């Protein structure tokens, strides 16, 4: 302080003051530049390839330009949990696909914006990477184009897809993140690829069953679950005919005899062929099935016990019912064993290895 208030200022003092002020200015300027530089680098385009390889799962291929990267997955995750893409900014993808319920929602049929009730049960998103087509009726071939559906559907997010894109594109954070992950703007391609990339990272492959069956860990399944596995694969129950291992689905469309009269035409909604496809739905994965109650396309069966009862009864007399659904007899202890096996298919932690940070 004395330095600045001194009235006896010689040229040396003046020079020192000049030097000090210059230095201070220089430091401030340099700090500013450095900060800007750091800011710039933070969102510089990066592509850290991610390869999901699970030896006991089928191989898959992604279209050129749709390869996974840590950055795309991270941006997709942010979008997945962001209600900005619903009309009233109150519903995100995660509203009906809750992580702790294996990305289902625990409701018979989902509830969208303004409390609008959907007619279908929210399916798990685990292992959608291997799904050859999306939706229970298989109406869409790619994860990228299916994202249009929930966003525009009036019982879900009810927002024109173009407006969803515009909202995200107008957000400065997303502008930076899309540059970082795609070196591109927010547009239909990058927007849908971000969400699809995150969904592809939701893998489930290391359940007790996997460790027992594919990795030789004989202690991974208890005796009851092992008996349940044998029942599951048995010629009498025929569960594994459609719920084929390792994905526990063959992705076929089956009428499982749930109804005598179908309000939801199922596969026929896409093919418009009621005579051949009414009431057929894609065989659901059983991975994490114990977490995704209630069950069936309309959530009409509350528990796994009810599901087993349904198949044991042989179902309805619908003319298109699959010939695999013929009923079977099962004792109480066998039912308990089958349930124990189904519970051994839980794995809701493997996907976290693909949980990447935003910059």
């Amino acid at each position, binding site marked *: 302080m004395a330095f600045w208030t001194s009235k006896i200022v010689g040229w040396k003092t003046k020079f020192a003051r000049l030097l000090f002020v210059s230095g201070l200015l220089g430091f401030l300027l340099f700090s500013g530049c450095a900060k800007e530089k750091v800011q710039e680098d933070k969102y510089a385009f990066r592509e850290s390839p991610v390869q999901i390889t699970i030896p006991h799962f089928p191989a898959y291929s992604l279209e050129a330009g749709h390869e996974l990267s840590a950055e795309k997955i991270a941006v997709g995750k942010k979008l997945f949990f962001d209600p900005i893409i619903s009309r009233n900014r109150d519903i995100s993808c995660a509203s009906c696909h809750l992580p702790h319920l294996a990305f289902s929602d625990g409701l018979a049929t989902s509830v969208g914006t303004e409390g609008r009730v959907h007619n279908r049960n929210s399916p798990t998103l685990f292992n959608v990477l291997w799904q050859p087509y999306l*939706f229970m*009726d298989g*109406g*869409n*071939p*790619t994860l*990228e*184009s*299916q*994202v*249009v*559906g929930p966003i*525009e559907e009036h019982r879900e997010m009810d927002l*024109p*897809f*173009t*407006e969803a*894109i515009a909202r995200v594109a107008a957000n400065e954070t997303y502008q930076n993140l899309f540059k970082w992950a795609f070196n*591109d703007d927010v*547009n*239909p*391609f*990058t*927007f*849908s*690829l971000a969400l699809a990339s995150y969904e592809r990272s939701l893998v489930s492959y290391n359940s007790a069953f996997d460790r027992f069956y594919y990795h030789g860990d004989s202690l991974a399944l208890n005796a009851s679950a092992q008996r349940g596995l044998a029942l599951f694969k048995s010629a009498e129950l025929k569960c594994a005919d459609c719920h084929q291992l390792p994905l526990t689905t063959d992705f076929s469309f089956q009428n499982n005899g749930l109804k005598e009269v179908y309000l939801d*035409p199922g596969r*026929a*909604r*896409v093919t*418009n062929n*009621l005579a051949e496809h009414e009431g057929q739905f894609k065989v659901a994965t059983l991975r994490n099935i114990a977490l995704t109650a209630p069950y069936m396309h309309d959530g009409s069966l509350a528990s796994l016990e009810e599901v087993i009862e349904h198949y044991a009864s042989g179902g309805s007399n619908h003319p298109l019912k699959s010939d695999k659904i013929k009923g079977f007899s099962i004792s109480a202890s066998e039912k308990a064993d089958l349930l124990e096996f189904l519970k051994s298919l839980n794995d809701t932690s493997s996907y976290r290895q693909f949980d990447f940070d935003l910059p």
Partner: protein
Amino acid sequence: MKNYKWALALSALVAVSACKKDDDTTVEPDPNADKVAVVLNYDFNFGADDFVLDQEYTLDSGGVVKFSLATYYLAQPVIMDDAGNSSPLSPEYLIVRPNNTSSDLGYIDPGHAHMFNVSIGVDEATNTENGANGRQPTDFTDSDHPLAPQPEGMYWSWASGYIFVKIEGEVDYEGDGTFDNVFKYHLGTNPFRKDRSTVLNLNLEKAQTLQLTMHIDYEKFLEDVNMRTEILTMSMGDQRPLAEKMMNKFDAAVSFSHGILD
């Protein structure tokens, strides 16, 4: 000597300027000067009135309707000559809204134009379920492309297909000023695409413009439609018969005329 140098410099400047001017005014020959331009005009009506969104129109029943949406796709317009050779027009896809007045469809060679063909809807290869031959709206980074996502939502992701015709509005049954119900006709799927052919039989000379006009009478579209019961279809399930009826009615409400502009 000094003056000579100045004159030389001035001459050089003038010469350079002249050359530059010549360069600037070079006119490229019009590559379409020997061609025939094709224009598709739109003429939308509700009976004798012009068709405008949100305008009220009186039905024969005494009720009143107003439309909030009337958008449709056209695909693969072509001009065919007598030998059956097709000259594809451009663009291949058009999305048409009530405020559109015309679309430029490019140029064709002079000669005899026998027929104009266009589809109302989107061709099957593009409107495909498996995506093998077609493109999805999410493929289009060019938001101006007609098949890119549209504000009206002209794509059903649940069926991987485009909505060919999307018409929505409200109906006031008694004409008492209170709109009682909404109507929504979302028409599509491959069997409902309408392939239209219009005989032209025109001899077209270079530098002429072939003027095609697509007329739609929305009163005709709603003719014989029970506006109390036939008001909703998304072209699926038990709504399919109504979709078929409304697509047929849309097709019947459409007519084409043509002329030549010298």
